[in-house]
């Protein structure tokens, strides 16, 4: 008896709901010796910017209770080198590539989208809007519904690819942001990005991370993520991709049950490089045990 794990994100189909989260899976190739990349539903690449970036000074990461802090600062090869050096490998995979991108002005988002539009073998773009808007005095675009919407409109104008918009959890009311990006034309929403955090070295009395402010991820944030995803699912009609602390099939199921159409695995890739594959296997076992043939029968079945 064949189990169906295919899920749809609006106009695109994933062979299964297990994706990798941006910044935790490089450009996929680094994992080829460790797992079968063709088994994954999707791969979101390291956040890509218009120009190559070197990122923040060291130290950039530190472990915390049940999680980790990072402030990488978008070290990446830039969109042109991505297209030349990384895309040819990714396009051959069965896992759909999502080009995660970020910028500091609305216009730059448009330029990036236009370049990505040329790539015919991707699942879509993933727009990381949690970035300071340089023109607007550094306000985080992901925390302001108007800015968020204008980024999405600009991206939509410049590409016909599926546009997934990635939201930050650091807001008072996620519903407002979710609605705004939906109205601006987003094809799907992914969340959560990291929670803002900080850690102090009590010996030096300095930050443990050079950039001072950093992002919290890992199992510690899972309850926050589940709650926000449930809220967004109940607010918008477009599909939602759940992210945040997922490291086991049980975790993934929590997100699917509250209504995520797919999930992304982030930090878990670091401590368990086989996490995605084990989640996939676990989903299948859960389906068999519960006599479910189609994973879509799990999605959104939360009883409140």
């Amino acid at each position, binding site marked *: 008896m064949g189990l169906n794990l295919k899920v749809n994100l609006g106009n695109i189909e994933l062979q299964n709901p297990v994706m990798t989260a941006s910044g935790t899976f490089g450009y996929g190739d680094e994992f080829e010796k460790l797992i079968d990349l063709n088994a994954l539903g999707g791969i979101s690449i390291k956040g890509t910017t218009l120009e190559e970036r070197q990122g923040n000074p*060291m130290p950039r*990461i530190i472990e915390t209770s049940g999680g980790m802090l990072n402030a990488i600062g978008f070290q990446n090869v830039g969109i042109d080198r991505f297209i030349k050096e990384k895309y040819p490998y990714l396009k051959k995979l069965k896992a759909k590539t999502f080009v995660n991108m970020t910028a500091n002005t609305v216009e730059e988002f448009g330029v990036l989208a236009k370049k990505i539009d040329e790539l015919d073998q991707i699942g879509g773009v993933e727009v990381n809007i949690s970035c300071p808007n340089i023109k607007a005095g550094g306000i985080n675009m992901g925390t302001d519904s108007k800015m968020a919407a204008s980024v999405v409109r600009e991206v939509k104008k410049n590409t016909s690819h599926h546009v997934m918009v990635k939201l930050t959890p650091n807001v008072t009311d996620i519903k407002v942001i979710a609605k705004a990006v939906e109205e601006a034309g987003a094809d799907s929403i992914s969340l959560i990005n990291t929670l803002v955090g900080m850690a102090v070295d009590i010996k030096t009395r300095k930050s443990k991370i050079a950039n001072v402010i950093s992002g919290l991820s890992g199992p510690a944030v899972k309850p926050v993520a589940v709650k926000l995803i449930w809220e967004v699912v109940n607010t918008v009609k477009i599909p939602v991709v759940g992210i945040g602390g997922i490291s086991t099939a049980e975790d993934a199921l929590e997100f699917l049950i509250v209504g995520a159409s797919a999930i992304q695995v982030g930090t878990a890739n670091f*401590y368990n490089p086989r996490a995605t594959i084990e989640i996939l296997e676990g989903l299948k076992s859960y389906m068999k045990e519960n006599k479910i043939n189609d994973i879509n029968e799990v999605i959104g079945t939360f009883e409140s």
Partner: protein
Amino acid sequence: MFLKNIVVEKNKEVKSDHFIMSFKDKEIAEDVRKGQFVELKINDGLGNLLRKPISIHDVYENKVSLLYKVIGKGTKALSKYKKGEELSILGPLGNGFPNIADDKEILLVAGGIGFAPFSLIMREVKNWKLFYGFRDASEFLLEGATSDIHYENEQIFITTDNGSMGTKGFVTDKLEEYLRENSQNKIIFSCGPNIMMKKVAEIANQYNVVSYLSLEEYMGCGIGVCAGCVAKIKNPDKPDGWEFKKVCKDGPVFRGDEIIWD
């Protein structure tokens, strides 16, 4: 590179707070290059979420050994593993030290636990000298950890902070002393605290000797995907003349004259 569960064969304190853990694994043993490391997943719940990088200390007939110092909760938990217990291991990782022709003499410069990756070199290479600095005689790892490696006493130069063994003072002073007399056909491999390695790079530069330094950074993934572990490395093709390279994947060994310290 492998991801597998190994079975701990030995995990023993060899000097105060310094442990050797060993396990049998043919694949890893055959794959290892000198100066590479592994990432260990210490399973004590979520207290140690990320893997911990530890150099490959020695390999001998499929037996791989790690030499580590207990400095925090991860290494503490590691020291509790008992013979027969399983441990998830990822590796060997990174680019190790280069292979050097026998006509060159390799000067190994180790500071404290930085001695860890040198055993394998001492075992497999003939033409070496070891400059080894540590705090106190109680931290001398050469006997406890590598008793079966054969060497001549003249190959070894020891310094301690308190003079309890060898010469009192900096290991880099010993290195310079030596290079002052003989700097031809030498190459330096070094591992230890940054402050020491920076000095090693300076001395190497001064005597026109090529140096390879093994850097340490806090690591997230160990395989080059998180960019958590970078070092500033010269690159004239980049706008600022340098780029951040990944210590785990592009290193941990870099040429001393290419590292920018700041």
